Protein backbone atom coordinates (compact mmCIF):
# COMPACT_ATOMS: atom_id res chain seq x y z
CA UNK A 1 0.00 0.00 0.00
CA UNK A 2 2.74 2.36 0.96
CA UNK A 3 4.57 1.46 -2.19
CA UNK A 4 1.46 2.25 -4.24
CA UNK A 5 1.26 5.68 -2.64
CA UNK A 6 4.92 6.16 -3.51
CA UNK A 7 4.22 5.37 -7.14
CA UNK A 8 1.29 7.78 -7.23
CA UNK A 9 3.43 10.43 -5.58
CA UNK A 10 6.14 9.87 -8.16
CA UNK A 11 3.73 10.41 -11.01
CA UNK A 12 2.10 13.42 -9.41
CA UNK A 13 5.60 14.83 -9.17
CA UNK A 14 6.22 14.14 -12.84
CA UNK A 15 2.88 15.61 -13.87
CA UNK A 16 3.59 18.73 -11.89
CA UNK A 17 7.13 19.35 -13.08
CA UNK A 18 7.23 17.68 -16.48
CA UNK A 19 3.88 16.95 -18.03
CA UNK A 20 2.06 20.22 -17.39
CA UNK A 21 4.99 22.55 -18.09
CA UNK A 22 5.93 20.63 -21.25
CA UNK A 23 2.33 20.64 -22.48
CA UNK A 24 1.99 24.38 -22.13
CA UNK A 25 5.49 25.14 -23.44
CA UNK A 26 4.77 22.80 -26.35
CA UNK A 27 1.50 24.60 -27.10
CA UNK A 28 3.28 27.95 -27.11
CA UNK A 29 5.95 26.61 -29.46
CA UNK A 30 3.28 25.01 -31.64
CA UNK A 31 1.55 28.33 -32.25
CA UNK A 32 4.86 29.99 -33.11
CA UNK A 33 5.84 27.07 -35.34
CA UNK A 34 2.48 27.19 -37.08
CA UNK A 35 3.09 30.86 -37.89
CA UNK A 36 6.53 30.01 -39.33
CA UNK A 37 5.01 27.17 -41.36
CA UNK A 38 2.28 29.38 -42.81
CA UNK A 39 4.78 32.01 -43.85
CA UNK A 40 7.10 29.35 -45.25
CA UNK A 41 4.39 27.58 -47.26
CA UNK A 42 2.90 30.69 -48.77
CA UNK A 43 5.62 33.33 -48.85
CA UNK A 44 8.37 30.77 -49.40
CA UNK A 45 10.93 31.82 -46.83
CA UNK A 46 11.92 30.93 -43.27
CA UNK A 47 11.04 33.90 -41.14
CA UNK A 48 13.91 34.60 -38.76
CA UNK A 49 11.98 37.49 -37.26
CA UNK A 50 9.47 35.08 -35.65
CA UNK A 51 10.90 35.24 -32.10
CA UNK A 52 11.23 39.00 -32.11
CA UNK A 53 7.77 39.40 -33.63
CA UNK A 54 6.47 37.40 -30.69
CA UNK A 55 8.30 39.83 -28.42
CA UNK A 56 6.73 42.76 -30.27
CA UNK A 57 3.22 41.36 -29.95
CA UNK A 58 3.70 40.57 -26.29
CA UNK A 59 5.13 44.01 -25.61
CA UNK A 60 2.04 45.61 -27.15
CA UNK A 61 -0.15 43.34 -25.03
CA UNK A 62 1.79 44.38 -21.91
CA UNK A 63 1.38 48.06 -22.72
CA UNK A 64 -2.35 47.56 -23.17
CA UNK A 65 -2.48 45.52 -19.96
CA UNK A 66 -0.84 48.32 -17.99
CA UNK A 67 -3.24 50.81 -19.52
CA UNK A 68 -6.28 48.67 -18.71
CA UNK A 69 -5.05 48.13 -15.17
CA UNK A 70 -4.54 51.87 -14.75
CA UNK A 71 -8.08 52.50 -15.91
CA UNK A 72 -9.33 49.83 -13.56
CA UNK A 73 -10.69 47.77 -16.46
CA UNK A 74 -9.95 44.40 -14.93
CA UNK A 75 -12.02 41.35 -14.19
CA UNK A 76 -10.85 39.59 -11.07
CA UNK A 77 -9.63 36.07 -11.62
CA UNK A 78 -8.79 36.39 -15.30
CA UNK A 79 -5.50 37.77 -16.64
CA UNK A 80 -6.04 41.21 -18.15
CA UNK A 81 -3.52 40.31 -20.84
CA UNK A 82 -6.09 37.93 -22.34
CA UNK A 83 -8.61 40.70 -22.97
CA UNK A 84 -6.13 42.94 -24.66
CA UNK A 85 -5.01 40.24 -27.12
CA UNK A 86 -7.35 41.48 -29.90
CA UNK A 87 -5.89 44.98 -29.62
CA UNK A 88 -2.37 43.60 -29.52
CA UNK A 89 -3.10 41.53 -32.63
CA UNK A 90 -4.33 44.58 -34.53
CA UNK A 91 -1.19 46.57 -33.70
CA UNK A 92 1.16 43.64 -34.35
CA UNK A 93 -0.51 42.71 -37.63
CA UNK A 94 -0.27 46.34 -38.75
CA UNK A 95 3.42 46.40 -37.85
CA UNK A 96 4.07 43.14 -39.71
CA UNK A 97 2.12 44.33 -42.74
CA UNK A 98 4.31 47.44 -42.72
CA UNK A 99 7.45 45.31 -42.72
CA UNK A 100 5.94 43.48 -45.67
CA UNK A 101 5.20 46.68 -47.52
CA UNK A 102 8.64 48.14 -46.97
CA UNK A 103 10.81 45.02 -47.01
CA UNK A 104 9.40 41.73 -48.29
CA UNK A 105 7.18 43.10 -51.04
CA UNK A 106 10.17 44.34 -52.98
CA UNK A 107 11.83 40.92 -52.93
CA UNK A 108 8.61 39.23 -53.97
CA UNK A 109 8.18 41.54 -56.93
CA UNK A 110 11.75 40.97 -58.05
CA UNK A 111 11.39 37.20 -57.61
CA UNK A 112 14.32 37.11 -55.21
CA UNK A 113 15.74 33.76 -54.10
CA UNK A 114 14.41 32.50 -50.76
CA UNK A 115 17.82 32.91 -49.15
CA UNK A 116 17.77 36.61 -50.02
CA UNK A 117 14.41 37.01 -48.34
CA UNK A 118 15.68 35.07 -45.33
CA UNK A 119 18.52 37.59 -45.05
CA UNK A 120 15.98 40.40 -45.23
CA UNK A 121 14.00 38.74 -42.44
CA UNK A 122 17.15 38.71 -40.30
CA UNK A 123 17.25 42.46 -40.81
CA UNK A 124 13.62 42.72 -39.75
CA UNK A 125 14.50 40.56 -36.74
CA UNK A 126 17.17 43.02 -35.56
CA UNK A 127 14.98 46.06 -36.17
CA UNK A 128 12.01 44.52 -34.38
CA UNK A 129 14.17 43.43 -31.47
CA UNK A 130 15.59 46.95 -31.32
CA UNK A 131 12.17 48.56 -31.28
CA UNK A 132 11.06 46.27 -28.47
CA UNK A 133 14.11 47.06 -26.34
CA UNK A 134 13.72 50.76 -27.10
CA UNK A 135 10.12 50.85 -25.93
CA UNK A 136 9.97 48.40 -23.02
CA UNK A 137 13.63 47.79 -22.25
CA UNK A 138 15.65 44.61 -21.94
CA UNK A 139 14.49 43.77 -18.39
CA UNK A 140 12.06 41.06 -17.40
CA UNK A 141 8.40 41.96 -16.84
CA UNK A 142 5.72 39.91 -15.17
CA UNK A 143 2.32 41.02 -16.30
CA UNK A 144 0.04 38.17 -15.39
CA UNK A 145 -2.64 39.23 -12.91
CA UNK A 146 -5.76 37.29 -12.01
CA UNK A 147 -5.85 33.90 -10.38
CA UNK A 148 -2.52 32.10 -10.51
CA UNK A 149 -3.92 28.64 -9.83
CA UNK A 150 -6.97 26.58 -10.63
CA UNK A 151 -5.84 24.69 -7.54
CA UNK A 152 -2.47 24.95 -5.84
CA UNK A 153 -0.14 22.34 -4.43
CA UNK A 154 -1.36 22.70 -0.87
CA UNK A 155 -5.03 22.37 -1.80
CA UNK A 156 -4.16 19.28 -3.82
CA UNK A 157 -2.30 17.74 -0.89
CA UNK A 158 -5.14 18.39 1.51
CA UNK A 159 -7.67 17.05 -0.96
CA UNK A 160 -5.80 13.85 -1.87
CA UNK A 161 -3.77 13.27 1.26
CA UNK A 162 -0.67 12.68 -0.85
CA UNK A 163 2.65 14.08 0.19
CA UNK A 164 3.36 15.46 -3.29
CA UNK A 165 1.49 18.55 -4.37
CA UNK A 166 0.14 19.19 -7.82
CA UNK A 167 -0.34 22.80 -8.83
CA UNK A 168 -2.62 23.43 -11.76
CA UNK A 169 -1.74 26.88 -12.98
CA UNK A 170 -4.32 29.07 -14.69
CA UNK A 171 -1.72 29.81 -17.35
CA UNK A 172 -1.38 26.12 -18.20
CA UNK A 173 -5.10 25.63 -18.62
CA UNK A 174 -5.38 28.82 -20.67
CA UNK A 175 -2.43 27.97 -22.86
CA UNK A 176 -3.57 24.50 -23.75
CA UNK A 177 -7.23 25.48 -24.26
CA UNK A 178 -6.45 28.49 -26.39
CA UNK A 179 -3.86 26.59 -28.42
CA UNK A 180 -6.29 23.76 -29.17
CA UNK A 181 -9.03 26.18 -30.23
CA UNK A 182 -6.66 28.22 -32.34
CA UNK A 183 -5.15 25.21 -34.09
CA UNK A 184 -8.64 23.93 -34.79
CA UNK A 185 -9.57 27.33 -36.21
CA UNK A 186 -6.49 27.51 -38.45
CA UNK A 187 -7.13 24.03 -39.87
CA UNK A 188 -10.80 24.75 -40.38
CA UNK A 189 -9.94 28.01 -42.07
CA UNK A 190 -7.40 26.41 -44.42
CA UNK A 191 -9.54 23.37 -45.26
CA UNK A 192 -13.02 24.79 -45.51
CA UNK A 193 -13.12 28.50 -46.28
CA UNK A 194 -12.70 29.97 -49.73
CA UNK A 195 -9.87 32.22 -48.61
CA UNK A 196 -8.17 29.33 -46.84
CA UNK A 197 -8.37 27.15 -49.91
CA UNK A 198 -7.03 30.00 -52.01
CA UNK A 199 -4.05 30.15 -49.64
CA UNK A 200 -3.41 26.43 -50.04
CA UNK A 201 -3.77 26.73 -53.79
CA UNK A 202 -1.30 29.61 -53.80
CA UNK A 203 1.14 27.56 -51.76
CA UNK A 204 0.66 24.53 -54.00
CA UNK A 205 1.04 26.14 -57.42
CA UNK A 206 1.44 29.87 -57.44
CA UNK A 207 1.19 30.37 -61.21
CA UNK A 208 -1.96 28.32 -61.48
CA UNK A 209 -3.44 30.22 -58.52
CA UNK A 210 -2.87 33.46 -60.40
CA UNK A 211 -4.45 31.88 -63.47
CA UNK A 212 -7.50 30.99 -61.39
CA UNK A 213 -7.96 34.62 -60.48
CA UNK A 214 -6.71 34.31 -56.89
CA UNK A 215 -5.51 37.70 -55.72
CA UNK A 216 -1.90 37.21 -54.61
CA UNK A 217 -1.87 40.42 -52.56
CA UNK A 218 -4.86 39.27 -50.57
CA UNK A 219 -3.31 35.84 -49.97
CA UNK A 220 -0.15 37.51 -48.70
CA UNK A 221 -2.11 39.88 -46.50
CA UNK A 222 -4.27 37.17 -44.95
CA UNK A 223 -1.19 35.02 -44.38
CA UNK A 224 0.55 37.79 -42.46
CA UNK A 225 -2.55 38.60 -40.43
CA UNK A 226 -3.02 34.95 -39.52
CA UNK A 227 0.68 34.59 -38.69
CA UNK A 228 0.61 37.81 -36.65
CA UNK A 229 -2.37 36.55 -34.66
CA UNK A 230 -0.69 33.23 -33.90
CA UNK A 231 2.53 35.07 -33.09
CA UNK A 232 0.92 37.50 -30.68
CA UNK A 233 -1.10 34.83 -28.90
CA UNK A 234 1.90 32.50 -28.64
CA UNK A 235 3.95 35.37 -27.20
CA UNK A 236 1.34 36.45 -24.68
CA UNK A 237 0.74 32.87 -23.49
CA UNK A 238 4.48 32.32 -23.08
CA UNK A 239 4.73 35.62 -21.19
CA UNK A 240 1.81 34.88 -18.87
CA UNK A 241 3.51 31.57 -18.10
CA UNK A 242 7.15 32.60 -17.76
CA UNK A 243 7.31 36.38 -17.83
CA UNK A 244 8.47 38.61 -20.64
CA UNK A 245 12.06 39.35 -21.57
CA UNK A 246 13.07 40.48 -25.05
CA UNK A 247 16.20 38.32 -25.22
CA UNK A 248 14.38 35.18 -24.17
CA UNK A 249 11.80 35.68 -26.93
CA UNK A 250 14.57 36.25 -29.42
CA UNK A 251 16.08 32.89 -28.45
CA UNK A 252 12.75 31.12 -28.90
CA UNK A 253 13.56 31.14 -32.60
CA UNK A 254 15.75 28.06 -32.15
CA UNK A 255 13.16 25.72 -30.56
CA UNK A 256 10.55 27.04 -32.98
CA UNK A 257 12.68 26.29 -36.03
CA UNK A 258 13.57 22.93 -34.52
CA UNK A 259 9.84 22.18 -34.18
CA UNK A 260 9.18 23.09 -37.80
CA UNK A 261 12.02 20.96 -39.11
CA UNK A 262 11.37 18.00 -36.82
CA UNK A 263 7.73 17.97 -37.88
CA UNK A 264 8.47 18.32 -41.58
CA UNK A 265 8.97 21.68 -43.19
CA UNK A 266 5.78 23.18 -44.55
CA UNK A 267 3.48 20.71 -42.80
CA UNK A 268 1.18 22.44 -40.28
CA UNK A 269 0.44 19.17 -38.50
CA UNK A 270 4.17 18.47 -38.40
CA UNK A 271 4.87 21.85 -36.82
CA UNK A 272 2.55 21.00 -33.95
CA UNK A 273 3.93 17.49 -33.46
CA UNK A 274 7.47 18.87 -33.69
CA UNK A 275 6.71 21.47 -31.04
CA UNK A 276 5.77 18.78 -28.54
CA UNK A 277 8.80 16.65 -29.41
CA UNK A 278 10.99 19.67 -28.69
CA UNK A 279 9.18 20.78 -25.54
CA UNK A 280 9.09 17.32 -24.00
CA UNK A 281 12.74 16.69 -24.85
CA UNK A 282 13.71 20.00 -23.26
CA UNK A 283 11.74 19.45 -20.09
CA UNK A 284 12.49 15.72 -19.72
CA UNK A 285 16.21 16.18 -20.26
CA UNK A 286 16.60 19.13 -17.90
CA UNK A 287 14.43 17.74 -15.10
CA UNK A 288 16.21 16.51 -11.96
CA UNK A 289 14.90 13.01 -11.34
CA UNK A 290 16.29 12.56 -7.82
CA UNK A 291 13.03 12.89 -5.91
CA UNK A 292 11.15 10.88 -8.54
CA UNK A 293 13.62 8.00 -8.17
CA UNK A 294 13.55 8.18 -4.39
CA UNK A 295 9.83 7.44 -4.55
CA UNK A 296 10.26 4.53 -6.93
CA UNK A 297 13.51 2.82 -5.96
CA UNK A 298 14.21 0.79 -2.83
CA UNK A 299 16.18 2.72 -0.22
CA UNK A 300 19.45 0.97 -1.06
CA UNK A 301 19.40 2.24 -4.65
CA UNK A 302 18.47 5.84 -3.93
CA UNK A 303 20.58 8.32 -5.88
CA UNK A 304 22.72 10.96 -4.20
CA UNK A 305 23.04 13.24 -7.20
CA UNK A 306 20.29 15.30 -8.81
CA UNK A 307 20.00 12.81 -11.69
CA UNK A 308 19.60 15.67 -14.12
CA UNK A 309 20.65 14.64 -17.62
CA UNK A 310 21.45 18.15 -18.84
CA UNK A 311 21.74 21.43 -16.95
CA UNK A 312 18.94 23.95 -17.53
CA UNK A 313 21.44 26.43 -18.88
CA UNK A 314 21.93 24.13 -21.89
CA UNK A 315 18.29 23.86 -22.79
CA UNK A 316 18.67 25.70 -26.08
CA UNK A 317 21.38 23.25 -27.06
CA UNK A 318 18.76 20.51 -26.89
CA UNK A 319 16.78 22.05 -29.75
CA UNK A 320 19.99 22.30 -31.65
CA UNK A 321 20.92 18.66 -31.11
CA UNK A 322 17.41 17.48 -32.04
CA UNK A 323 17.73 19.55 -35.19
CA UNK A 324 21.02 17.97 -36.15
CA UNK A 325 19.78 14.44 -35.42
CA UNK A 326 16.64 14.91 -37.50
CA UNK A 327 18.51 16.46 -40.39
CA UNK A 328 20.93 13.54 -40.39
CA UNK A 329 18.47 10.69 -39.93
CA UNK A 330 15.22 11.89 -41.44
CA UNK A 331 15.59 15.20 -43.24
CA UNK A 332 11.93 15.24 -44.27
CA UNK A 333 10.84 15.31 -40.63
CA UNK A 334 8.04 13.29 -39.04
CA UNK A 335 5.37 14.27 -41.55
CA UNK A 336 7.47 14.12 -44.71
CA UNK A 337 7.86 17.80 -45.38
CA UNK A 338 10.23 19.31 -47.90
CA UNK A 339 13.95 18.69 -47.64
CA UNK A 340 15.85 21.91 -47.10
Amino acid at each position, binding site marked *: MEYLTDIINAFVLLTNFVLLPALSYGSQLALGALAVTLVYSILRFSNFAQGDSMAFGTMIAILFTWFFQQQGWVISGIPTALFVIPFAIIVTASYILLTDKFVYKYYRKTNAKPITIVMASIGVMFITGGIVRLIIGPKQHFFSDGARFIFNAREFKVFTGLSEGLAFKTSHLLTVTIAVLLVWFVFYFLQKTKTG*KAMRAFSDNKD*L*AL*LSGIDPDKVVRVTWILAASLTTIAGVLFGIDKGFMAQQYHLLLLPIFASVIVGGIGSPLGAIAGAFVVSFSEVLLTYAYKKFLIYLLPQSLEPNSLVQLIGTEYKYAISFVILVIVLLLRPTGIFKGKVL
Partner: protein
Amino acid sequence: MAYLEGNNLVAAYGVVPILHGCSVEVNKGELAVIVGPNGAGKSTVMKVLLGLLESSEGSVLLDGQDIGSLSTQQRITLGLAFVPQNNNTFPSMTVEENLEMGAFLRDDSLKHTMDEVYSLFPILFEKRRQMAGELSGGQRQQVAFGRAMMTRPSVMLLDEPTAGVSPIIMDEIFGNIIDLKSSGKAVLMVEQNAQQALNIADKGFVLVSGRNEHTGSGQELINDPAVRKQFLGG
Protein backbone atom coordinates in the same frame (compact mmCIF):
# COMPACT_ATOMS: atom_id res chain seq x y z
CA MET B 1 -10.55 42.39 -86.17
CA ALA B 2 -10.56 39.19 -84.16
CA TYR B 3 -11.90 38.74 -80.61
CA LEU B 4 -8.48 37.96 -79.14
CA GLU B 5 -5.39 39.18 -80.93
CA GLY B 6 -1.69 39.14 -80.22
CA ASN B 7 0.02 41.41 -82.72
CA ASN B 8 3.75 41.47 -83.55
CA LEU B 9 4.72 40.25 -80.11
CA VAL B 10 8.34 40.58 -79.05
CA ALA B 11 9.30 39.01 -75.74
CA ALA B 12 12.30 37.71 -73.85
CA TYR B 13 13.08 35.76 -70.69
CA GLY B 14 15.52 38.13 -69.08
CA VAL B 15 17.88 39.02 -71.89
CA VAL B 16 17.30 35.93 -74.04
CA PRO B 17 14.95 36.98 -76.87
CA ILE B 18 12.34 34.34 -77.72
CA LEU B 19 9.55 36.00 -79.71
CA HIS B 20 10.51 38.17 -82.66
CA GLY B 21 7.23 39.71 -83.70
CA CYS B 22 4.76 36.89 -83.94
CA SER B 23 1.02 37.27 -84.28
CA VAL B 24 -1.90 35.02 -83.39
CA GLU B 25 -5.64 35.60 -83.28
CA VAL B 26 -8.90 33.80 -82.63
CA ASN B 27 -12.56 34.70 -82.92
CA LYS B 28 -15.54 33.60 -80.88
CA GLY B 29 -16.86 30.28 -82.10
CA GLU B 30 -13.51 29.51 -83.63
CA LEU B 31 -10.66 27.11 -82.97
CA ALA B 32 -7.18 28.37 -83.74
CA VAL B 33 -4.16 26.09 -83.44
CA ILE B 34 -0.51 26.96 -82.94
CA VAL B 35 1.93 24.31 -84.11
CA GLY B 36 5.68 24.30 -84.47
CA PRO B 37 8.86 22.56 -83.34
CA ASN B 38 9.92 22.28 -79.71
CA GLY B 39 11.26 25.52 -78.38
CA ALA B 40 9.61 27.61 -81.09
CA GLY B 41 8.00 29.86 -78.50
CA LYS B 42 4.45 28.48 -78.61
CA SER B 43 4.04 28.38 -74.83
CA THR B 44 5.71 31.75 -74.60
CA VAL B 45 3.05 33.31 -76.83
CA MET B 46 0.39 31.95 -74.49
CA LYS B 47 2.18 33.43 -71.49
CA VAL B 48 2.31 36.84 -73.16
CA LEU B 49 -1.40 36.70 -74.02
CA LEU B 50 -2.14 35.99 -70.35
CA GLY B 51 0.22 38.56 -68.93
CA LEU B 52 2.45 35.95 -67.29
CA LEU B 53 5.33 37.37 -69.33
CA GLU B 54 5.64 40.96 -70.47
CA SER B 55 6.14 41.74 -74.14
CA SER B 56 8.49 44.55 -75.02
CA GLU B 57 6.72 45.25 -78.30
CA GLY B 58 3.39 44.45 -79.86
CA SER B 59 -0.11 44.48 -78.45
CA VAL B 60 -2.68 42.14 -76.97
CA LEU B 61 -6.26 43.04 -77.79
CA LEU B 62 -9.43 41.53 -76.37
CA ASP B 63 -12.58 42.60 -78.15
CA GLY B 64 -10.70 45.59 -79.53
CA GLN B 65 -9.51 46.73 -76.12
CA ASP B 66 -5.79 46.77 -75.35
CA ILE B 67 -5.29 44.47 -72.35
CA GLY B 68 -1.50 44.46 -72.61
CA SER B 69 -1.03 46.42 -69.40
CA LEU B 70 -3.50 44.41 -67.31
CA SER B 71 -2.43 41.89 -64.68
CA THR B 72 -3.10 38.19 -65.20
CA GLN B 73 -5.89 38.32 -62.68
CA GLN B 74 -7.62 41.17 -64.50
CA ARG B 75 -7.37 39.28 -67.78
CA ILE B 76 -8.92 36.22 -66.15
CA THR B 77 -11.74 38.42 -64.89
CA LEU B 78 -12.31 39.53 -68.48
CA GLY B 79 -12.92 35.94 -69.53
CA LEU B 80 -9.58 34.36 -70.42
CA ALA B 81 -8.88 30.86 -69.12
CA PHE B 82 -5.67 28.92 -69.51
CA VAL B 83 -4.58 25.31 -69.24
CA PRO B 84 -0.79 25.43 -68.95
CA GLN B 85 1.43 22.78 -70.47
CA ASN B 86 3.08 21.80 -67.17
CA ASN B 87 2.08 22.00 -63.52
CA ASN B 88 -1.52 22.53 -64.44
CA THR B 89 -3.12 21.21 -61.25
CA PHE B 90 -2.91 21.90 -57.53
CA PRO B 91 -1.24 18.60 -56.57
CA SER B 92 -2.00 18.60 -52.84
CA MET B 93 -5.62 19.59 -53.24
CA THR B 94 -8.44 17.22 -54.12
CA VAL B 95 -9.88 17.01 -57.62
CA GLU B 96 -13.00 18.77 -56.39
CA GLU B 97 -10.99 21.54 -54.78
CA ASN B 98 -9.06 21.94 -58.03
CA LEU B 99 -12.33 22.54 -59.82
CA GLU B 100 -13.49 24.92 -57.10
CA MET B 101 -10.31 26.92 -57.46
CA GLY B 102 -10.96 27.20 -61.17
CA ALA B 103 -14.21 28.93 -60.29
CA PHE B 104 -12.57 31.16 -57.71
CA LEU B 105 -13.91 34.37 -59.24
CA ARG B 106 -17.47 33.12 -59.39
CA ASP B 107 -19.96 33.84 -56.63
CA ASP B 108 -22.87 31.82 -57.96
CA SER B 109 -23.48 28.12 -57.45
CA LEU B 110 -20.86 25.92 -59.05
CA LYS B 111 -22.92 22.78 -59.05
CA HIS B 112 -24.11 23.00 -62.63
CA THR B 113 -20.68 23.57 -64.17
CA MET B 114 -19.15 20.96 -61.92
CA ASP B 115 -21.73 18.37 -62.98
CA GLU B 116 -20.93 19.28 -66.55
CA VAL B 117 -17.23 18.62 -66.00
CA TYR B 118 -17.98 15.35 -64.22
CA SER B 119 -20.20 14.17 -67.03
CA LEU B 120 -17.46 14.99 -69.54
CA PHE B 121 -14.82 13.23 -67.45
CA PRO B 122 -16.54 10.56 -65.33
CA ILE B 123 -13.22 9.44 -63.87
CA LEU B 124 -12.92 12.81 -62.15
CA PHE B 125 -16.18 12.23 -60.32
CA GLU B 126 -14.89 8.90 -59.11
CA LYS B 127 -11.68 10.49 -57.90
CA ARG B 128 -13.12 13.78 -56.67
CA ARG B 129 -11.88 13.30 -53.08
CA GLN B 130 -8.40 12.25 -54.15
CA MET B 131 -5.41 14.56 -54.37
CA ALA B 132 -4.73 15.68 -57.91
CA GLY B 133 -1.06 14.85 -57.37
CA GLU B 134 -1.98 11.18 -56.96
CA LEU B 135 -3.63 10.92 -60.38
CA SER B 136 -2.05 9.64 -63.58
CA GLY B 137 -0.73 12.14 -66.11
CA GLY B 138 -3.73 11.77 -68.39
CA GLN B 139 -6.16 12.12 -65.50
CA ARG B 140 -4.35 15.26 -64.41
CA GLN B 141 -4.84 16.70 -67.91
CA GLN B 142 -8.54 16.13 -67.47
CA VAL B 143 -8.49 17.91 -64.10
CA ALA B 144 -6.63 20.80 -65.72
CA PHE B 145 -9.14 21.01 -68.52
CA GLY B 146 -12.03 20.83 -66.09
CA ARG B 147 -10.51 23.51 -63.88
CA ALA B 148 -10.31 25.91 -66.82
CA MET B 149 -13.90 25.17 -67.80
CA MET B 150 -15.07 26.13 -64.32
CA THR B 151 -14.52 29.82 -64.96
CA ARG B 152 -17.01 29.68 -67.86
CA PRO B 153 -14.53 31.68 -69.92
CA SER B 154 -15.13 33.35 -73.26
CA VAL B 155 -11.62 32.49 -74.43
CA MET B 156 -9.92 29.16 -73.69
CA LEU B 157 -6.17 28.99 -74.10
CA LEU B 158 -4.91 25.41 -74.09
CA ASP B 159 -1.23 24.50 -74.10
CA GLU B 160 -0.98 20.92 -75.34
CA PRO B 161 -4.16 19.67 -73.66
CA THR B 162 -3.61 16.17 -75.02
CA ALA B 163 -0.01 15.70 -73.94
CA GLY B 164 0.36 12.25 -72.42
CA VAL B 165 -3.26 11.14 -72.71
CA SER B 166 -4.41 7.92 -74.36
CA PRO B 167 -5.95 8.08 -77.88
CA ILE B 168 -9.47 7.64 -76.50
CA ILE B 169 -9.12 10.52 -74.06
CA MET B 170 -7.43 12.55 -76.79
CA ASP B 171 -10.49 12.10 -79.00
CA GLU B 172 -12.67 13.03 -76.05
CA ILE B 173 -10.68 16.17 -75.36
CA PHE B 174 -10.76 17.15 -79.03
CA GLY B 175 -14.49 16.49 -78.93
CA ASN B 176 -14.83 18.80 -75.93
CA ILE B 177 -12.82 21.45 -77.69
CA ILE B 178 -15.15 21.33 -80.68
CA ASP B 179 -18.10 21.56 -78.26
CA LEU B 180 -16.51 24.56 -76.59
CA LYS B 181 -16.10 26.38 -79.86
CA SER B 182 -19.59 25.55 -81.04
CA SER B 183 -20.91 26.93 -77.77
CA GLY B 184 -19.46 30.25 -78.90
CA LYS B 185 -16.14 30.32 -77.05
CA ALA B 186 -12.92 31.32 -78.69
CA VAL B 187 -10.38 28.48 -78.37
CA LEU B 188 -6.67 28.93 -78.98
CA MET B 189 -4.64 25.77 -78.64
CA VAL B 190 -1.03 24.70 -78.89
CA GLU B 191 -0.83 21.13 -80.14
CA GLN B 192 1.86 18.62 -80.99
CA ASN B 193 -0.52 16.36 -82.87
CA ALA B 194 -0.44 18.87 -85.70
CA GLN B 195 -2.27 16.78 -88.30
CA GLN B 196 -5.28 16.06 -86.10
CA ALA B 197 -5.38 19.53 -84.64
CA LEU B 198 -5.21 21.31 -88.00
CA ASN B 199 -7.95 19.01 -89.26
CA ILE B 200 -10.43 20.45 -86.80
CA ALA B 201 -8.96 23.97 -86.72
CA ASP B 202 -10.45 27.04 -88.33
CA LYS B 203 -7.11 28.82 -88.25
CA GLY B 204 -3.56 27.65 -87.91
CA PHE B 205 -0.26 29.31 -87.08
CA VAL B 206 3.05 27.61 -87.71
CA LEU B 207 5.61 29.11 -85.39
CA VAL B 208 9.35 28.70 -85.91
CA SER B 209 11.97 30.47 -83.76
CA GLY B 210 9.50 33.01 -82.50
CA ARG B 211 8.16 34.01 -85.92
CA ASN B 212 5.07 33.09 -87.93
CA GLU B 213 6.36 30.82 -90.66
CA HIS B 214 2.93 30.03 -92.08
CA THR B 215 -0.53 31.33 -91.32
CA GLY B 216 -3.81 30.19 -92.79
CA SER B 217 -6.92 28.13 -92.33
CA GLY B 218 -6.45 24.61 -91.02
CA GLN B 219 -7.08 23.07 -94.42
CA GLU B 220 -4.76 25.52 -96.22
CA LEU B 221 -1.92 24.58 -93.91
CA ILE B 222 -2.55 20.87 -94.25
CA ASN B 223 -2.51 21.21 -98.01
CA ASP B 224 0.55 23.47 -98.07
CA PRO B 225 3.43 21.27 -99.30
CA ALA B 226 6.02 23.26 -97.32
CA VAL B 227 4.11 22.76 -94.09
CA ARG B 228 3.50 19.09 -94.88
CA LYS B 229 7.15 18.50 -95.52
CA GLN B 230 8.42 20.33 -92.45
CA PHE B 231 5.85 19.48 -89.80
CA LEU B 232 3.41 16.86 -90.84
CA GLY B 233 5.89 14.25 -91.97
CA GLY B 234 5.30 14.21 -95.74
